[in-house]
Every structure is written in C-alpha cells, then in structure tokens.
C-alpha cells in the first residue's frame, strides 16, 4: 500500500490533534461491541416490567457514614404519586457492592462460547437489585447493556455498507472513466438517478417492498443493501473523475501497448492511484451509514425490539413526555454522536495527511 510506505503521511496523520481522540474512541467502542456479551452486565432481553424506567443507579462510596473503597449501589423500589407516576427511591438498608468479573446472566459469546461471568456487575443472583448505569427502558431492561449490544448493529452497518459501496463505486467509476464516451454517459446518467430523489425518500421507498415484520437478520441485511444502493453513486462519480485524468497518462498507454486487458488496467494500474482519495472519502462516508441505520430503526422500519440498535433504542424518545420524565433514554444518541464524531476526526486527519496541497 502506498499509504503505509509514505512515512511522512503516517507521521502527519498521527500528529493531527484530532486523530488520537478519534482512534481511542473507536477502539473503545468497537472492543465493547465485539465482546458485547461479556462487557454488558445483563443480556439484551433481560428485563423486568416491574422496574420500567428505573432511573440510573447512583454509585455510592459511603454507607451509614462509613467510607469503603469498593463502590456499591442500593436497590430501588417505587411507589406511585398522586398522578400515578412511578417515583423511585433508594432502599438504603443494604448495600450491593460492585465488582469485576461477577456472575450474571448465562449468555453465549459470539453465539458459541457459553459464559456466565461479566466484566462488571453486582453480586446478586436474585437480581432484585440491578446495576442500571444508564437507567432502564420502558420494559425494565438495562439501557447500558442494550446500548452495548446495539453497537454491534450500528457500528458494523457502516463498515459493511462502505465495503459494498466502495466495490460498486470503484468498478462503475473505473469503467465509466476508462471507457468514456457512451458507456460513461450512460453510467453517469444512471448514477444520477440515485441522487435525484432525497435519500430519505429513496430509503423509505426501497424499504417499503418488504414487510415490516421480517426477522432482524433480514432487516439488517436489507438496511445494508439499501444504504449501499443509495451511497455508491456519489463515490463512483468522484472515482470516475480521477480515472478520467489518470487514464490519459503514459503508463496506461504503455500497459495497453503491452496487451493488458482493460479490466486488468483498470483494477491493477489505475484504481490504486485513487486509493488515497478513496480512503478519505470512505472514512468520511461511514457516519452516513451509521446515521442511515439509526434513522430507519428510529422510525420503526429497521431493527425491531427485543434486538437493539442505537436507532431503535432512541426511538423510545420519540414521545416527548417520555424524555421529560426519563431523560436518560437519550443516551443512545450520545453514542451515535461519539462514533460519528470519531469517524469525522479520523477522516479529517487522513485528508490532511494524504492531501499533498496541505
């Protein structure tokens, strides 16, 4: 790869002030998402309707005036006020200490390895007291655990989607720019079709062909396909522009004279020249996929409940009254923001490092 040989670019990239924060955030988020079953203290569908919208557990260090180094939480109980709203109060009689590698829900890591110990949690097998870092959702499930599980969908959609998009974009852009003429004209007019309608409308129309209640795996694949279909056109057009100018250079003529096939020239000789631009563009387009998925799931056309994604978790907040009383349901949005921002940081760093004009 040209990218790694060029030491100056690598140095410039890491010295960019925003790159490190971006990389660290992403490493953290992706690690959590890969080991979701282990990191999340509860399984994604472990809920208790009795504790619907329990507020985030407060973490204490002082019990009955005595300080202990080990943090602990109290269990919560609720009663109804005069408006029949649940008021949660801490039951300060017994502290439940927080510790690492506690036994909790039996889950299978990556659907294969059965594990019972989780990264952290509280030792209470009855689960009467629960550690809800970000509070509970309407059916009393741990929002933190669900965010961790949801990151699997939200963070992978971007990577897979961008992969498909770039293959399509490289191929169509490459062919279009290399052959020029009628092929070029047709392909470009075709690609414009996808940019002709506002993308959200196109997303809805494409989604409409499939029933709402298909399984979550199918929805997941469908979302990726839809987002890639919408996304490739812009990328292909830029690649085409670059190929158009590269195709006139001497080394392409030389390759042609040596009898290389067109496809070989496009893939082996021309496209690698566009890589540095493509890396930047791809990185900066990942947030679009994360947002696209969360938009669809947010309005209920994407990932469906028990399964979690950041979008459908945030969907609960669609009801304004719910945000007012339970503001912690906005937390998934913070995660969307963090991941999008991290990709933007890295994309900017890449652009500054790879752009010879800067």
């Amino acid at each position, binding site marked *: 790869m040209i990218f790694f040989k060029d030491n100056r670019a690598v140095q410039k990239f890491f010295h960019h002030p*925003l790159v490190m924060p971006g990389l660290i955030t992403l490493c953290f988020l992706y690690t959590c998402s890969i080991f979701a079953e282990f990191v999340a203290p509860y399984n994604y569908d472990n809920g208790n309707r009795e504790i619907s919208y329990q507020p985030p557990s407060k973490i204490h260090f002082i019990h009955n005036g005595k300080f202990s180094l080990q943090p602990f939480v109290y269990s919560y109980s609720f009663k109804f006020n005069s408006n029949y709203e649940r008021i949660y109060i801490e039951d300060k009689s017994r502290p439940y200490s927080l510790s690492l590698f506690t036994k909790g829900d039996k889950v299978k890591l990556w659907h294969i390895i059965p594990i019972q110990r989780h990264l952290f949690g509280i030792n209470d097998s009855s689960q009467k007291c629960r550690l809800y870092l970000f509070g509970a959702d309407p059916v009393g499930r741990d929002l933190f655990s669900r965010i961790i599980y949801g990151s699997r969908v939200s963070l992978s959609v971007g990577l897979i989607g961008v992969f498909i998009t770039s293959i399509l974009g490289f191929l169509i852009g490459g062919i279009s720019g290399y052959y020029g003429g009628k092929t070029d004209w047709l392909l470009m*007019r075709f690609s*414009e*079709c*996808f*940019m*002709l*309608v*506002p*993308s*959200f*409308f*196109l997303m*809805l*129309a*494409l*989604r*409409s*062909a*499939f*029933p*709402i209640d298909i399984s979550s795996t199918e929805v997941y694949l469908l979302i990726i396909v839809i987002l890639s279909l919408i996304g490739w056109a812009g990328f292909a057009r830029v690649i085409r522009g670059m190929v158009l100018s590269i195709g006139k250079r001497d080394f392409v003529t030389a390759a042609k004279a040596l009898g290389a096939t067109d496809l070989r020239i496009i893939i082996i000789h021309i496209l690698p020249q566009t890589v540095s631009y493509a890396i930047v563009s791809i990185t900066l387009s990942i*947030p679009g996929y994360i*947002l696209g998925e*969360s*938009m669809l799931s*947010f*309005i209920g056309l994407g990932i469906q409940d028990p399964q979690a994604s950041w979008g459908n978790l*945030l969907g609960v*907040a*669609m009801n*304004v009254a719910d*945000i*007012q009383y339970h*503001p912690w349901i*906005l937390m998934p*949005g913070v995660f*969307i*923001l963090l991941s*999008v*921002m991290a990709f*933007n*940081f890295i994309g900017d760093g890449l652009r500054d490092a790879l752009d010879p004009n800067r």
Partner: protein
Amino acid sequence: MRDELIRRLLVSIPQLLLISFVTFLFIDLAPGDILAKYRFDPRISKETIQQIEQKYHFDKPILVQYGHWLVRLAHFDLGYSFSREANVTAVIVERLFNTFILALFSIIITWLIAIPLGIYAAVRQYSWGDRIMTAISYLGMSLPGFFIALILMYVIYISKDMPIISLLPIGGMISANYESLGFFGKIGDRAAHMVLPVTVLTITALAGLQRISRGNMLEELRKQYIVTARAKGLPENRIIYGHALRNAINPLITLFGFEFSTLLSGAALLEIIINWPGLGSLMLSAVRSQDTFLVMGSMLMGGGMLILGNFVSDILLIIVDPRVRKG
C-alpha cells in the same frame, strides 16, 4: 450554458421516470395492498371494490398498471389516495408547501449566519474565535438532526419557567385554537411553531457551510491578486469584501442544490418527530399504508424539488459568475 441547463433538465425527466418505475415495482412487490382495508369493510360491496380495481387497473399486470399511471401523469393526474381518501395532487400540494416553507427559512437563516462566521474565521485564522468555531462545528457536523430535535424538545420542556422559551410549542404546525385567532395571532402561532424545526435544520446545516466558506475564503486570501491588491495599498476591508469574498462565494452557490437535498432528507425525519404535516411525514404514512399513488406522488415531488434546487443554484451561479456565463 443555457443549452447545457436545458439539456440537464431534459435528461432528468427519464431519470425521474426510471426511479418512479423502480418505486412502483417495489411497492407492488410488498405483500398486501391498499385495498385490503376495503375488503374487510362489510359496508363496501365486492362490486365497488371491483369497480375500483378496474378503474385503476389493479387487476392487470404491473407494467400495464405503470403505463396507466404514466398516462394519468401526462394529464397531471397523480391518482387517488386511498388512505387519505382524497386526490393525491391536493394532498401533496398542501404538504409540499409546508415542507418548502421549512426548507426555505432554514436555508436563508443558515446562509445569513454561516457565511459571515466563515469569513470571520478565515480573516482571523487561528484566533480564539476561529478555534472555538472549529470546535463547535465538529460537534455540529456530527450531531444527527433527529437527536438535536429530541434534545431541543427536552430543553423546551424543562425550561417551562423561562419567559420566552415556555411559549414555544413542541410539535405540530398550528395550535388547537388556531382558527379562533386573529390574523396576526395566526401568523404568530405559525411562526412560534416554526422555531423548533427551523432551529434544528439550521444547526445541522450551519457547521458544514461555515467550514466550507472558511476554507474557500482562506484559499482566495492566499492568491496572488490579493497580494497585488495589498501592494497597491487598498484598504483591507475593500480587499476582503470587494475582492476575496466575491470569488469565495461562487463555489458555495453550487453547493446550494446539494444543501437542498440533505435539507429535504433531514426535514423529512424531523417532520415525523415533531408531527409537522410536510412531505416527509406524508411519505412515511403512505409507505406504511402501501398507498402506491401517494408514495409515487411524494417521490416525484421530492425529486422535483431537488431538480428545482439544482436548477436555481445553476441560474444563481450564472448571475453571479461571469466566467460561467461565457464558458
């Protein structure tokens, strides 16, 4: 340039038709249909349903159905919306206006704020003001519109005791007592309802535009003719506003069409969240109820608005930039 514009408009017609055909096909693929609710309604006889089917050719193959839709389209008839029980054209025109108002106001406000901020940041590059704006713009570019909307709704909700914010409505386009208000009351009511959506759309677009205008301005300020102007002793204000700014704005105008597209998409989701009766929320409900003609109409209108946006930006560019006019 004029020929080029006309050519582009003409090409967009078959493109729009292709997209409309794909949409038509996709809605037809989906299980169930819009007439299902009529079939289960005991008040509606089988004959009536058959009549409807015959009238709109639902009993024919998909290609024939699409052909008939095209013929009606040529007569400016977008068909009948079964879910709204009204003419599609009538439904859409009203919604289109609502969306257009939102988009228009937020575009104007965004440009009025973003460009001066961009110029300021470029002229005082690396000053504290520039740095703060850069930091904020990163946040602004990464904040999804629907999340901003939710946060703002929450903020309005919790600041009920504040003097002005408490007057802001959170959803919808008009209040329940709209009809009883006087003329100015009606205008005020509509304006108050627009504050939230326009703010959200402005925030989402602001950061990007500010960064681009800063970048363009910086690039212009580095060019030779600016050095010449300085050497001739022109006052700095004249250099910035008379020379650099005029050139820095041109690329922004081409962005206008693109801006319009993202704005329409963003507005669509926002409309759904805050119950704004616009094109986006119409599209969602049409898709949900498989109201083919309504979906098709909304798609066409969405596409039409985009084409119009691009067209307007092209014309603006011709007006502003003499190089484009001659080239």
